[in-house]
């Protein structure tokens, strides 16, 4: 195999920061090349250099593509040569159809008049290739994230792609959709499309990649061949963080104290389609010091369960009972839910958890302002003290608590959200995907925080799509499917296979449920 792409000694400096320091990347023709690294390691910067977002001349080093020296002055130059990036945040127009999105800016038109017949015919072909069976006229809005991802890939294929770059393509996908996407990547490889995948998920990397390049602190640490080298996930992790993480899940003694929270017969209907039941008679218990997991596929209703309990923030026609310490509590508004001792750490920290334009300090105190104020007047000094305390306790890496949270990395942002909810002094914290999109080192810190919460006798409910994480962290795991809690496993009983089989048998046993949707 000859190399399709060689990036030699790439150095990119921003005022005061060296984002890339002498990075080398060689991608062979027809392979899938994985790039791993912690958040902020420089992966995205490297891809921006490659695609011309940072034009030639603003960085040092050389890019050789297809045997030629490449000097891209913008993204159109790189696309013309078949280099196409699919970003983590999808760039589709929600209210346009699949076909319109695929040919956006590249319309099948003569003299400005669109040839819809040709557009639809080509779209159907492309959708076949990516295995998406939706009519080309479907609005992108009505597709799930997994299918939208496929539309993006179809769009890339429409441009005669030679080098496809996928930035964290499975971050928002369910297990099932992720597998489908990885299969598609292997199929594209068979058709000769060279691909670069940026991913945090090492099992995926091992599954599809031919080579792995690890970047740390803006420099290449290692490049491995998955076929010839002996690659283990631990080795990749070690290279990424620069130290041994002998145990990815810090151990915690099993503690289950008194009963803290009991939810019974919780039912919720969809906010718009009122005949559609989203949560079906869910009941669960959380004891003091316990970490309870909720496993399930994307769309099984985990987030909806949590949000409907937390101040009825989701759904309508909600019924059921919540008890804290055996006494029934009212959680019908967020304020009351907080008062009852609940906290909900959202899965979508940027749009639901943080005020990005505000400082760490102001975000930290937001859910419990009365604690830092008297007669409605905020004591700025007290507020700073509180924020500073959490900055140290959580190890939030920032020069000061007066930084805007938008300037922080994902892991540090998540710590700010956690600080906010810890400061509201809850008894039970519901953590929805607490480690999504954050790097290995920060994950470990989040796990440690969860353990210390358990130590303080708080109850933790952990919702996660990453089964190893649930298995590694939880004392008990509830399995959720189609809006119902279909099983409960203790840490000793639980395994990925058992959880999956509970989900699968549930579907087989009760086909009526699926039909009702």
């Amino acid at each position, binding site marked *: 195999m000859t190399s399709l792409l060689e990036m030699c000694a790439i150095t990119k400096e921003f005022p005061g920061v060296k984002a890339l320091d002498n990075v080398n990347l060689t991608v062979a023709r027809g392979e899938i090349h994985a790039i791993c690294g912690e958040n902020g390691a420089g992966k995205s910067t490297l891809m921006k250099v490659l695609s011309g977002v940072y034009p030639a001349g603003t960085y040092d080093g050389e890019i050789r593509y297809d045997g030629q020296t490449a000097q891209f002055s913008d993204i159109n130059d790189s696309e013309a040569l078949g280099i196409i990036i699919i970003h983590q945040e999808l760039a589709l127009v929600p209210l346009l159809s699949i076909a319109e999105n695929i040919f956006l800016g590249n319309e099948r038109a003569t003299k400005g008049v669109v040839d819809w017949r040709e557009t639809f015919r080509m779209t159907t072909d492309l959708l076949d290739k990516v295995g998406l069976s939706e009519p080309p006229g479907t609005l992108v809005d009505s597709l799930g994230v997994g299918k939208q991802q496929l539309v993006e890939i179809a769009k890339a294929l429409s441009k005669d792609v030679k080098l496809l770059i996928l930035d964290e393509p499975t971050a928002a996908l369910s297990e099932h959709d992720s597998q489908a996407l990885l299969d598609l990547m292997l199929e594209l490889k068979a058709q000769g499309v060279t691909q670069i995948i940026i991913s945090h998920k090492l099992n995926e990397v091992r599954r599809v990649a031919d080579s792995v390049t690890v970047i740390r602190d803006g420099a290449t640490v290692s490049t491995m061949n998955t076929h010839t080298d002996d690659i283990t996930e631990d080795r990749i992790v070690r290279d990424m963080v620069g130290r041994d993480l002998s145990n990815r899940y810090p151990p915690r003694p099993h503690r289950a104290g008194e009963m803290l929270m009991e939810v019974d017969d919780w039912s919720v209907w969809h906010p718009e389609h009122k005949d559609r039941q989203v949560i079906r008679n869910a009941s669960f218990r959380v004891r003091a010091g316990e970490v309870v997991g909720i496993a399930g596929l994307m769309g099984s209703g985990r987030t909806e369960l949590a949000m409907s309990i937390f101040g009825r*923030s989701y759904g309508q026609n909600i019924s059921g009972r919540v008890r804290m310490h055996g006494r029934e509590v009212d959680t019908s508004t967020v*304020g009351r839910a907080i008062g009852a001792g609940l906290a909900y750490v959202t899965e979508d920290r940027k749009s639901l958890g*943080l*005020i990005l*334009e*505000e400082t760490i300090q102001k975000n930290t105190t*937001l859910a419990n302002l009365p604690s830092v104020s008297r007669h409605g007047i*905020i004591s700025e000094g007290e507020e*700073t003290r509180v924020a500073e305390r959490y900055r140290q306790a959580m190890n939030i890496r920032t020069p000061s608590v007066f930084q805007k949270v938008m300037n922080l990395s994902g892991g540090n942002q998540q710590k700010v959200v956690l600080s906010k909810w810890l400061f*509201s002094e809850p008894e039970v914290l519901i953590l929805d995907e607490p480690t999504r999109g954050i790097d290995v080192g920060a994950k470990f810190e989040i796990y440690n925080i969860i353990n210390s919460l358990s130590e303080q006798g708080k109850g933790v409910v952990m919702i996660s799509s990453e089964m190893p994480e649930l298995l590694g962290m939880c004392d008990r795991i509830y399995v959720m499917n189609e809006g119902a809690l279909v099983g409960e496993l203790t840490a000793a009983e639980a395994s990925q296979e058992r959880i999956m089989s509970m989900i699968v048998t549930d579907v087989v046993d009760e086909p009526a449920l699926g039909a009702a949707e």
Partner: protein
Amino acid sequence: MELAENKRANDGGSLVQYLSKHLREYGLLVALIAIMIFFQVVTDGTLLKPVNITNLFLQNSYIIIMALGMLIVIVAGHIDLSVGSVMGFIGALAAVMMVNWGWPVWATILASLGAGILIGAWQGYWVAYWKIPAFIVTLAGMLVFRGLSLWLLEGQSVGPFERSFQALSTGFIPDFTGLGRPNGTALVAGVIAVMLIVWLGLRQRITNRKYGMEEEPAAFFWARTIIVSGALFYVMYKLAGFRGLPNVMISMVVLTLIYAFITENTTLGRRIYALGGNEKAAKLSGIKTERLTFLAFVNMGMLAALAGLIFAARLNTATPKAGFGFELDVIAAVFIGGASMSGGSGKIIGAVVGAFIMGVLNNGMSIMGIGIDYQQVIKGLVLLAAVFFDVYQKNKA
């Protein structure tokens, strides 16, 4: 430890860095002063004559009072296009109450403010609880209240009013020192204000240092304090040379201080900024976002009513055209003052300075005899330039 390093970085000759970070805040003040000096020169000193300074306050008081409410509405992520019409309507209502129905002044003022609150509640209800975009609700309000003023006045002007009502706008604080001219009250108030500014500034610096917050370099602090207090005392001295402190200036200053305090130091204010910064996150933090939105409009309605009363008192008559187009001046003032179009940021003091910039431009150009045509063009360009400057700064960062 990191904090200490941070502080050192601030002390160590990073004046330029600090300035570039806070350029917007200083820029606004510098712009106001530069504009004043410019017009002072080109109008041969007319701008800063005591009688004209007094006029500046009288002419702009209602814009500034409405800008206080508008800032809050804009910070909360909305807009109010109806304030000009509402203030016209309230002026008309007050006129009809006093002149046609013979109501006493105090009852008229209370009823008018109450009507303003109801109007704000009406608009806030649709925006907050039905999620109808404020642009639409207040555009409708703009038409409705313009129409209602016409109907109420039957197309005529109604006036004049009793002296005690006129005093709302054109009255002056009596001189308790008996000095006469220069007016002793104004001088004393000037001295007290300067002392207050210095004392509050120093106290803030001490607090900042205590908690390791970012510190304004001493040179800037003193330069700013000296310029601000100097300008303030100069203005007070000039006012003393005419008839002293206008009543309306006192209401304006008091309201500005109250609103600055509410927005910067209270939980209520903090929650409004949070609401504008990210409504969903605020809601999930237990903040009653609907109620806050509602209250922002109620407050706006009340301030628009107060502005309507002051405007009617100043003209000594209510006309169907009163307040026409004022919403644009008010909104422009808030944006010139640095508020963000998407909500979540902006300061009361910025809105007030923004309103003064617009006011001095209006006044200066009128003295120069520049036609209303060019005046509009220039004001429009100033607004665009100010917002461009914001966006440019943001992109650079």
